[in-house]
């Protein structure tokens, strides 16, 4: 039993460290990058990592480190807004359906099921091909796709809590439904909610990387980790650092959050 507790502590600390590193990267990147990420330098195309370019340069001579910093910033931005939209709407729907049940529950849950039955990336692709590519469209697409999982999780929490005596007491004392849902019940779901948000963040990072890789997300010349991966494909053998840097970022971020989540 002692070992397990220590393991948990270790995971939590390791995860926090990883996330901290990535966060530092991103925050610094907002204010300062060693080079302008879009500045091209033809003389230094595909240069290997050196002191002045710690991550090397890409095929346009742009500094990879700077691009990774801004790329990570973009990816994070997309991921965070996605879970805010998906989590926000999902929680709201979950609360309503869980609390009220009945016809509302049935209808909304069927729509939910419908959304879930499509492979999410496919849905995102379809969405984006209709409204066009770009950062904000990706956020919208992913946000909608993330709604069902949040809704389902929050709904089952609400179903459990609404029968409890303290809810009955609140009704007795005259609390309105919305107050009960969001002031009385919701705070009890905090642990599960945080967990879902963390998982959602990870999935969003991966989804964004995937979408950008397919040229559907962030458009050039903006950087995003996924974009960089796709651009790096052709140079995998002569300039592997091009792919390694963003790939590494993605792995570290996802790993970090997963570790924190599990502990």
């Amino acid at each position, binding site marked *: *039993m*002692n070992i397990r507790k220590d393991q948990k502590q270790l995971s939590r600390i390791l995860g926090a460290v990883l996330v901290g590193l990535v966060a530092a990267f991103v925050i610094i990147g907002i204010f300062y990058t060693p080079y302008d990420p879009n500045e091209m330098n033809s003389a230094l195309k595909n240069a290997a990592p050196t002191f002045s370019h710690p991550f090397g340069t890409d095929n346009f001579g742009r500094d990879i480190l700077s691009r990774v910093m801004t790329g990570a910033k973009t990816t994070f931005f997309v991921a965070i807004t996605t879970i805010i939209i998906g989590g926000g709407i999902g929680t709201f729907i979950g609360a309503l359906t869980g609390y009220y049940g009945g016809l509302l529950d049935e209808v909304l849950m069927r729509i939910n099921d419908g959304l879930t039955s499509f492979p999410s990336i496919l849905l995102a692709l379809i969405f984006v091909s209709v409204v066009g590519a770009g950062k904000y469209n990706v956020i919208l697409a992913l946000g909608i796709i993330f709604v069902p999982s949040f809704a389902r999780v929050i709904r089952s929490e609400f179903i459990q809590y609404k029968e*409890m*005596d*303290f809810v*009955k*007491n*609140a*009704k*007795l*004392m*005259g*609390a309105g439904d919305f*107050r009960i849902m969001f002031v*009385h019940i919701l*705070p*009890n779901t*905090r642990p599960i909610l945080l967990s879902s948000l963390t998982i959602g963040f990870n999935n969003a990072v991966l989804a964004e990387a995937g979408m950008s890789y397919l040229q559907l997300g962030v458009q050039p010349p903006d950087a995003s980790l996924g974009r960089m991966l796709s651009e790096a494909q052709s140079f995998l053998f002569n300039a592997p650092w091009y792919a390694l840097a963003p790939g590494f970022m993605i792995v570290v971020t996802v790993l970090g959050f997963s570790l924190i989540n599990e502990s």
Partner: protein
Amino acid sequence: MQEKEDILVKVEGLTLGFPVRKEKNTVIDGISFSLKQGEILGLVGESGSGKTMTALAIAGLLPEAAKVFEGKIIFSSKNLFNLKQQELRQLKGREISMIFQEPMTSLNPVMTIGFQIEEMLLLHERGLSPEKRKTKIYAALEEAGLKDVKELYYKYPHQLSGGMRQRVMIAMAMICKPRLLIADEPTTALDVTIQAQILKLLKKLQKEHNTAILLISHDLGVIRHICSRALVMKNGKIEEQGLVEEIFFSPRTSYTKELIEAVPVIDKEMGGINVSSVSLKNSNSEKVILSVKDLEVRYEEKAKGFLKEKSYKQVVNRVSLHLLEGESLGIVGESGSGKTTLAKAVLGLIDNWKGDIKLVEKSPRMVFQDPYQSLNPSKKVGWILEEPLKLSGSGYRKEERQNKVDNILTRIGLNVSYKDRYLSQLSGGQRQRIAIGVALIQNSKFIVLDEPVSALDVTVQAQILNLLKELREEYKLSYLFISHDLKVIHKMCDRVCVMYQGEIVEEASVSELFTEPSHEYSKKLLEAVL
């Protein structure tokens, strides 16, 4: 020499706990006692006393996290802690058997009754043929007082009532005629009338098979009913041990005295008149604050199959009652009697009822049974107490609200600093006090109490009931007091309605009911009170 042979189990200096890194977390601290062949020994204690752990230690069922620091448990001259797994397993079931408190969870829900009992025989009496096993199982079930055993054999636990399940457990435990039966709160989850029957059964089995029984309970009445000797445990130590009669009539330690005094006693000679209700009767107004006429509540049962016929279950069947201002009306009944549903209907918490309910009080309040579910676990105590004020829309300003919260905290016996605590840091008794505070903070005059003390330890029960009594006198409250425990009703109520299967079978003043009950069921209830 004879005496030494009589001793079946000897516990010597047992000390165990749940060590976490450096903390020992001792749960049982150096206890020693012995149990003779064929003796019924009672183990009394409140929650946290270590009684269940003692039972589990003897049965060899301690959780993994538990560590025995010192001591021995000697069962027929073998130290149980020195035995190997194989040897222990031979003892378990055949010589030492156990029955647990919750009949809902102690039987495997996906196995038939017969199959589960057969396990015992398959493990311990291998030489039997299938027919012989069946015969034995039928016999065991019949001995446990069950009927139609041949059909019962193929039934599943969910098809049986709590009392029946407990009998099945007893049959299972007794089928190999063990020398020791450990019973951990075997009747606590059962209705009072069933409780009496189960205890009778245990006594019968002891007589017929000379089985020693270690009976664990927090209920002194239960212990007194069938045990010859008893141990009183507190905080992992034995406070007192001796003959049951000695303990009850001349307790030696102050804790034991406290335990005994905490149990409400029905003094039949005085006709059940307690002083406070007399004084309240004098100041009673004749004003009816609650009137219920022909209340009916029924639940739709799920339609079986395609037939459109809906079947209903009548939970409350034409119930009429009234409550006068300042009165405390008791509703007593066993599970399934409809008493909680009646309360909910009166408070407007359920929609589908028929009949007539008139309630003068505009904001009635309720104190629920389970102090662990009736308050919001994610909020601080201060918030919980303040919320009703915010909801009442009486326009109290923040300062006024804070004042009221402080006042009520003091009144219910808690320090004002409790405002900042979370519920997880509080005990059941403290939580129930807060629940009472919530009910009172808005100056409501009518309070429904649904088994408010059933989930609490005996000494805490007494404190809470006394608090309720004081508050009633001070604020001139009217109570609708629901309980299955006649002793509590006797202590707290002026009049009482007895409910059985959705109907009120008798209504009388407390003194009348306890001295001259008229309905059959009331008599049965009274007899079952230990």
